[in-house]
Each structure stands twice: as structure tokens, then as C-alpha cells.
């Protein structure tokens, strides 16, 4: 008796949240065109989540990143970054193959071997040091893009930050399909999974320390600035030929 009501309540609240988070398209034709170009129908909800993420950042992530950056020597930070990247090699390889990029796949598999064997388990990026095997990232969102899937509406994910319908789907598929994650889950290594997630977040936050703050100080609409930058850098990552803006 209780369970059906509870699930209906949850479903009803989620629906209400989603609907309230949707913005109705404006009536004015100029505003309407701008609204469509922004492609952010969930903007009110996204802004709320964005605010929440800001709070978590100010309270937890940024202070932790500042401490981490303050006490960690540069070579160690670099070593951690290299190690985390190396852990991603299997899922990068899978995506390279799914995208049909044999050249990229061979670079990734070579890197995996060379860095793990000669780079102390991936701490030293031997491939980058020699310059022959540079790092490239590949995720399932990118694979979907290569397969022709458009990015879809903008999404701000709790804790994860800026994304899109396509890229969020890609992230889910990646985390389910990542051989390293699968192995860790099978071994019940919760501490290691948590550790990896935490270090990934710290490393990512350290890399933009200072830049984000400056962007926030100087922008009129920080949310919109992040949305724009996310989309542009994402398009570049995917490797789509950028459309040059047209100046009169």
C-alpha cells in the first residue's frame, strides 16, 4: 500500500520539478530566435543546479583543491594527473575503436603499454615525454557526436557541472563500460573507486584554479559564460571543424 504511493509521489515531484525548470519560449520573434539559439529549455532548473554546484565548490572542492595544490610539489601533481589519465586508457581505446579511428586507437594502446611498463604504472607519461605518443581523450559523448548525434539541450549536472543531453548520456555509458570501473566494482573496491573519483575531481579543479574565479569576477552572467565556453571547448574536443563567426 505504501510503496505505490511513495513512488507516485517521487514521480510526481520529479515531473513538477522538471516542468517548473522549463522555460516557456518567449513570444517576441527576436527573443524567440535568441532563446532557440541558446538551446537551453531547462535554463531555470539548470541555473538552480549551477548555484548548488557553486555552493559545493566554495565550501568543499575549491578549498580542497587549494590545499592539494599548495602542499603538492608540481612533479607529484603531474604524476597523479598522468596516472589518472593512464587509468582512462582502456575506455579511451574503446571509444577510439567505436569512432573507427584506428590511428588514434593504436596511439592509445601503445601509450597504455609504454606508460604502464616504463612509466611506473602510468605516473610518468613516457609517450608525451618522447613526443611520439601524445595524449588524446575520447569519451562516449564524443563518439555519439562522431556518429552524428547532435548535442541536444544544455544540462547542468549536479556536482559534474556543464554537460548536454548527449554528453550526459555518454558519461553514463562510459562509467558503466569503463573496464577499470568494472574491475573495481567486481572486486568491491569501494575505497579505490571513491579515491579515483575524488582525485579526478581535485585534479580537474586544480587545473582551472584562478581562471574560474577571474571569469566569475569579470562576467555579467557567469552561468551563460560557462555555458558558452563549455560548448565551444567541447566542439573543439570532438574535433568538429569550428564555424568561424561571421563579422559584417
Amino acid at each position: 500500500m505504501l510503496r505505490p504511493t511513495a513512488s507516485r509521489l517521487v514521480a510526481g515531484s520529479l515531473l513538477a520539478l522538471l516542468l517548473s525548470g522549463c522555460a516557456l519560449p518567449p513570444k517576441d520573434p527576436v527573443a524567440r530566435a535568441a532563446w532557440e539559439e541558446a538551446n537551453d529549455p531547462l535554463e531555470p532548473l539548470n541555473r538552480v543546479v549551477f548555484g548548488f554546484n557553486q555552493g559545493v565548490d566554495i565550501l568543499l572542492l575549491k578549498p580542497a583543491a587549494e590545499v592539494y595544490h599548495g602542499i603538492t610539489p608540481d612533479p607529484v601533481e603531474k604524476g597523479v594527473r598522468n596516472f589518472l589519465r593512464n587509468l582512462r586508457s582502456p575506455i579511451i581505446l574503446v571509444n577510439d575503436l567505436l569512432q573507427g579511428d584506428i590511428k588514434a586507437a593504436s596511439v592509445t594502446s601503445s601509450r597504455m603499454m609504454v606508460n604502464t611498463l616504463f612509466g611506473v604504472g602510468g605516473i610518468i607519461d613516457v609517450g608525451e615525454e618522447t613526443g611520439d605518443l601524445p595524449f588524446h581523450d575520447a569519451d562516449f559523448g564524443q563518439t555519439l557526436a562522431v556518429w552524428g548525434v547532435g548535442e541536444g539541450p544544455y544540462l547542468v549536472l549536479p556536482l559534474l557541472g556543464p554537460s548536454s543531453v548527449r554528453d550526459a548520456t555518454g558519461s553514463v555509458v562510459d562509467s558503466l563500460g569503463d573496464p577499470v570501473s568494472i574491475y573495481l566494482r567486481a572486486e568491491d573496491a569501494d575505497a579505490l573507486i571513491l579515491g579515483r573519483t575524488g582525485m579526478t575531481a581535485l585534479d580537474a579543479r586544480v587545473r582551472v584554479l584562478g581562471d574560474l574565479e577571474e571569469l566569475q569576477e569579470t562576467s555579467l552572467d557567469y552561468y551563460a559564460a560557462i555555458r558558452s565556453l563549455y560548448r565551444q571547448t567541447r566542439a573543439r574536443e570532438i574535433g568538429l571543424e569550428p564555424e568561424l563567426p561571421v563579422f559584417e
Partner: protein
Amino acid sequence: MTKLRIPALTRRAVLGAASAAALAAALPVPALAATAEEARAFVESLRQAVFDNLIDVDVADEVRVARFRDLLTNSFDVPTIGRFVLGRYWNVATPEQRQEFLALFENMIVSLYARRFREYSGEDLQIGQARAVGTNDFLVSSAILRPNGPPVAVDWRVRPADGQMRILDVMVEGASLAVTQRQEYAAVIQQGGGRIEALLEALRRQQG
């Protein structure tokens, strides 16, 4: 008599053709390749001007800001950039709104970037290749070399006009500053109920 004139005409024609060919060989070939090099040289000269006038020079802040504004208006096509940044709202803006926006936009750039030159910490700009893009623009690649941190890729979109080069856009690691600004300002207008006045108010407040 007729027989003698034809050879003379022919000789003149041959001589004329030969000198025309010689003249063409003397001109730089083709004119477009020279302009890509000019675009590159232009960014190089901008870098030099920044080092000579803005960085590490012992001048008062107001002097530095004034020099930056001069350099900005001379090297960047601020009106064209401003028009692009206002986007679709340019067409529905009144002449007064357009004028005020351009003035506020220029002030925003000056206040945003001028102060950065005061806190110089050893960066340099390494200028790479230039290539033609669009109908008559050029993209000059470069990298900001930093003492602490990896280099930052910066591309300069340059357009020749009236015998002069002007910068239209700067792309940092692939993100166009003009596009980012345009999308941000469109959001400000949207959040302000679709009124351009909302953007002007926000800009005035930012500078006030």
C-alpha cells in the same frame, strides 16, 4: 610600303608583350601570399608595441590605461566586434542604444585587460603561422608562453581593410572571445526580459 609597316607593328607588339611579361615577373606573385605574411607581421608588431609601451614600463596607471586604449582602437576593429557581440539585437537597437553600447563595450575591454599588464610575470607571445580563412581574413596562430604552466594557444582573426590590418577576434584554446561575449550578453538581455536596456544597465553598473 604596306609590306614594311607590318613588320614594324609586329616588332612593337612583340616588344610590348615582352616588357609586359618582364613587368609581371617583377611583381610579387601572387598578391594574396604577401598579405598572409603581412597579417603575421601585424600581430608581431602588436606584440612589440605591447612590450614597448605597456609591459614593465614605469608609468602611472592612467597612462598605461590610455596607451592600452590607443593600442586597442588602432589594432582592433572595435565597432565591428561590438556589432557582432550585440548580435541580433543590433538591428532592433536605436542609434542611441548602439552608440552607448559601443562606448560601454570599449570601456569594458579597457578595464578588463589594461590592468593585467601591470602585473606582468614573464609571459611572452610566440607567433606561429598565418593562413587565409573566410573571404578575406587571416588566422594567425600563436602561443602565450608562461613561466608556470603549459603554453596557451591563441589565434588572432585579422582582416585587412583600407590598407590596414585590424583584429576581429581572439580565440583562446579554440574558444572565440567574441562568440563567448555575444552569447553571454544575449543571456543578460534574455534574463532582463528581452530588453537591450537591461544589458546597458548591467554594463553601466559594472563600470560604475
